[in-house]
């Protein structure tokens, strides 16, 4: 038994070092090299830039919107809201008083600004707290408010939502959705409206 134990020491120690070099250093570094070369945009976080080249966010990461002239994302439990260095869900259970209070308050705000049917994703926190999407229903609910704030016809805003609607892949995978940041960026770049509505 003792003999078996000591015969294991060299392979255990040497293989730990060798595998650490191969799997812990060579493998991620090689992939970083190839990724940066072949898919530089994705490998660096699918960043979006404004006209001046300034990073305004990532395609994949939701951000906080509060101005009435922007579409709003879902409630977020990441940090103080959409903190992309502290992803988190609310972890509140289905019979939680805290959850009930939060939803009641959010509903009151939403129903105060707009009549219509509130979509479930508008009052539920996402799993990551960084969900970049809302449902098309949630976007259409907000269209009149956005149009009002920007002095645009509702039909034009609604049409923009339609243009940004993403469907299911192959008709099965995923759910219909709208990327909030891309939609808001498109709003800003609609001629003559951006400057006026920017907060």
């Amino acid at each position, binding site marked *: 038994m003792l003999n*078996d*134990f000591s015969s*294991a020491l*060299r392979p*255990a120690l*040497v*293989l730990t070092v*060798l*595998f*650490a070099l191969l*799997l*812990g*250093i060579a*493998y991620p570094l090689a*992939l*970083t090299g*190839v990724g940066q070369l072949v*898919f530089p945009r*994705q490998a660096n976080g699918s960043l979006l830039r404004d006209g001046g080249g300034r*990073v*305004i*966010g*990532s395609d*994949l*990461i939701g*951000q*906080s919107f509060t101005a009435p002239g922007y579409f709003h994302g879902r409630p977020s439990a990441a940090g103080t809201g959409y903190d*992309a*260095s*502290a*992803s*988190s*869900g*609310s972890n*509140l*259970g*289905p*019979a*939680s*008083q805290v959850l009930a209070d939060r*939803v009641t308050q959010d509903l009151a705000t939403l129903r105060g600004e707009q009549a219509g049917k509130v979509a*479930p*994703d508008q*009052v*539920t926190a*996402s799993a*990551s707290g*960084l*969900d*970049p*999407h*809302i449902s098309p229903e949630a976007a259409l609910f907000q269209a009149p408010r956005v149009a009002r704030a920007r002095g645009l016809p509702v039909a034009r805003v609604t049409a923009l939502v339609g243009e940004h609607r993403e469907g*299911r*892949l192959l008709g*099965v*995978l*995923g*759910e219909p959705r709208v990327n909030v*940041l891309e939609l808001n960026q498109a709003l800003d770049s609609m001629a003559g409206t951006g400057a006026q509505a920017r*907060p």
Partner: protein
Amino acid sequence: MTVQGWILILLYTALLIAIAKPMGMWLFALYEGRATPLHRVLGPVERGFYRLSGIDPQAEQGWRKYALHMLVFQLALLLFTYAILRLQAVLPLNPRGLAGIGADGAMNTAISFTTNTNWQWYSGEVALSNFSQMIGLTIHNFLSAATGIAVAFALFRGFARRETATVGNFWADCTRVTLYLLLPACVIYALFLIASGVPQTLASSIDATTLEGAKQTIALGPVASQEAIKMLGTNGGGFFNANSAHPFENPTALTNLVQMLSIFALGAGLAWCFGKAVGNTRQGWAILAAMMVLFLAGAGVTYWQEAAGTSLFHQLGIAGGNLEGKEVRFGIAASALFSVITTAASCGAVNAMHDSFTPLGGMIPMINMQLGEVVVGGVGAGIYGFLLFATLAVFVAGLMVGRTPEYVGKKIEAKEVKLAVLAIAVLPLCILGFTALSAVLPAGLAGPLNKGPHGFSEILYAFASGTGNNGSAFAGLTAGTPFYNGLLSVAMWIGRFFMIVPVLAIAGSLAAKKYTPETAGSFPTTGPLWVGLLVAVILIVGGLTFLPSLALGPIADHLAMISGQLF
């Protein structure tokens, strides 16, 4: 529930069954030690590793030596990661100047990744440098998976070999699986993930100025390389706190489907490989059939419950399913399906927050883990856990017909049954024992976020996850305390190695036995009767023990919810 939701579940099952055989054939080549096309490229690496570490890959080991060498290797890896985490502050690739991890936390994480659990008390993007993630954790994701497969191979050899004293060579099994399967598969997988939007960079964050003019710090890192093995090796430890719900880990519905497939891929392949190893692939398909029965039943219940939604939202006028803690791009069906897959395997990655599931929807993941994650299961761990139940099932069948039980040509006798029961008994002892302890001690009661029965569910889930080496959580639980770090470390260690050592002992005992040819009197272990018996034994032996604890947690939670009570 939607048509698309059901199509997704069926499509997933069909794809899984389609990849079981090709995956199994590849595994079978490694099981036999045959050359694969990759040997031309990686053969020199393998031989170099053996030479430097003084390994003779042809040297066969008895089960005791196999187990001991496996344990020494695990210990070396564990101490390695412990040191990396403790010394984080002075190691490279730490531009944010993160401090070293405390003793209890580092020990918990080192054990967690060594045991293929990947329970995470910390938030990856907050607490760990890129160096710690790459070197300290990724290496375990490969080697804990390879170790699981090695142990499964040893058990297969126990069934397949006749009157032999040895079960293989641990070092050769572990090295071959890593070099010829996990590493090349992960390179391709990671490239697919990068192309789909998963970052792969050495930068740890970038600052953005949002449209509203605020500053948003976006955490980045070498995510794709870790993500690939995290899923394929059923590890489940996320780069980010939100795991596969984070858009950088799992950006699209397509990556989500691939991630779900990669959780089960090796487990399904191993079931086929087992059949091939014992000379009858129908044995493997029978196992896979029993697994699929349990899997589809679980997926159906969780999808149904999540799509039905919660009373709280319905009363507030929000109709439809439960979207709290779920991402819009996945929706309810893909979130429910993912939760069942990740807990049926010992993966533990999540694409939705299980803590916010409906009570019964969240109960299925819990049951999956309590059963020992034998429904496809973790790589290696799933199939050897399942074979323990198969041993019990033939024993039960033998008792009923009054014959010595046999399985795939080997007589199952008192020794094997005792060892199987020993391994299976670890689950209730650890899960229920530690849950009970935590539910009475102040340090335990300080953990739960939610009040009422859901708080109890958070504790029960944690120990089911730790003991089952799953790693997912009802994440409201504040687990980063010395109390939970300590107890969960013990649970993870016991859940892994008090299972593996008896399994290897069974392997040794079986390998020494004569081959017993099948006769007209043998109980058939391929048809629907056998599949039904397997399912029943797993549910009764594995599941019934936990029914009282489920009544106190999710079932009480459900009754409270439908009566409109809030906590």
